[in-house]
């Protein structure tokens, strides 16, 4: 129901008008609270103070995956139902996803420096997967930017996003498999469900906050895209009459 309501551009604009600031404020609050808890947590007995980078790194990696899933989903809807709003949403989400992915890479590198003694360790399968994800986003944006005809650019980019979405699990599997082949080369796993609650709570809070902020950014950029298209079609109409 929600989706079919939002599929109507007017209802989407009405909904997103109040949803964008609400999501943004909620997200910022959650991030602030989570980071505050995270900074108050005691230093890890193994990682020391460095553990705190995890609170910005791991959620960024989560959201980058989420963003690609959103890109693939919006592309699928646009391809199958030929829905213009879905295309606007797909176009809007790519740079946000690339930014979160870049953030995950940079913070991962900052976190790895004291832990591994190197800025980058190929032995960490997650980081490598995130790098491939960044290249998928970059390829999507490059393809879209290189085609002048907007309708053709949308269709080509949708096909590419779907191909990437189908390929992504295989990429994850292959990178993990590649990693086990080279086992024992300084692999340091980021936390998981076994993480102590004192770290898990801020991590989940920041993760939720990142996701909500991502939603707010996405709505904002989609709104911008819808406005841009309306303006373009109005200009065209004015020129024709």
């Amino acid at each position: 129901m929600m989706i079919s309501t939002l599929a109507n551009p007017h209802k989407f604009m009405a909904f997103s008008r109040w949803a964008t600031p609400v999501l943004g404020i909620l997200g910022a609050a959650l991030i602030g609270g989570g980071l505050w808890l995270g900074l108050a947590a005691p230093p890890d007995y193994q990682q020391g103070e460095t553990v705190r980078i995890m609170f910005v790194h791991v959620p960024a990696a989560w959201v980058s995956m989420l963003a690609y899933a959103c890109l693939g989903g919006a592309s699928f809807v646009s391809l199958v139902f030929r829905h213009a709003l879905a295309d606007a949403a797909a176009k809007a989400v790519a740079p946000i996803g690339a930014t979160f992915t870049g953030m995950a890479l940079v913070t991962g590198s900052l976190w790895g420096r004291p832990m591994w003694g190197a800025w980058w360790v190929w032995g960490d399968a997650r980081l490598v997967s995130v790098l491939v994800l960044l290249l998928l986003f970059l390829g999507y944006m490059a393809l879209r930017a290189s085609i002048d005809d907007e309708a053709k650019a949308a269709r080509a980019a949708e096909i590419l996003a779907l191909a990437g979405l189908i390929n992504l699990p295989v990429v994850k599997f292959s990178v993990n498999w590649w990693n086990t082949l080279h086992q024992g080369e300084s692999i340091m796993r980021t936390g998981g469900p076994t993480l102590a609650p004192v770290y898990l709570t801020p991590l989940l809070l920041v993760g939720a906050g990142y996701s909500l902020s991502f939603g707010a950014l996405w709505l904002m950029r989609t709104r911008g895209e819808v406005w841009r298209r309306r303006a373009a079609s109005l200009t065209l109409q004015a020129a024709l009459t």
Partner: protein
Amino acid sequence: MTALVALFRRELALTWGRGGGPLLAVGFFVAAALMFPLAIGAAPQRLQAVAGGVTWVALALASLLSLEPLFERDFDTGALEILSLGPLSLEVIAAAKCAAQWLATGAPLALAAPVVAVSLGATVATGALVGLAATIGGIAFAFLGGTGAALALAGRRGGVLIALIVLPLLTPPVIFGGAAIANFAAGLPWAGGMILLSAYALATVALTPFAMAGACRNALS
């Protein structure tokens, strides 16, 4: 069926015979591989450690970049539109094109690959495995690269665009083939990588024709 055979022979003749044919791809492959010892240095032990991997990456790049004219040529001359009106569906046409590309460019590259690998310091047995991996992996390179070429049709930015959108998708075959080659050279079990590479190649043959047909329809519309 005769239409398919005729199409395949046409594609083969075009890819093989026109404008240098496989010479371009093989020449680029050798030239790219040559750059590595020049940049890295001639120390045999250093080269030997990366011989298989460097050959494998140069091969993937040569396959990808030589795909540029696969759809563009027919798109520019209008032949793609004529073909799409014929008895064969665009899916079949795209698959035939990629298969012809594999035969006309992938096979010569697969023949050149062992020579390049051995010259970089791989053993003859490793070189043979590189050739086998190039033959199987060439299918994945041709079909995924063909998808990129079809998508880039409307974009006109050429080979770099194709390479940028396809290279991330090529991560799995590059890993599988590279692991098989590296493990074989190190005396470890290598069949797993080869099987995964073959499975991936088959999956691209099954799935990418739909993407290519969609991309061609989009470019033609």
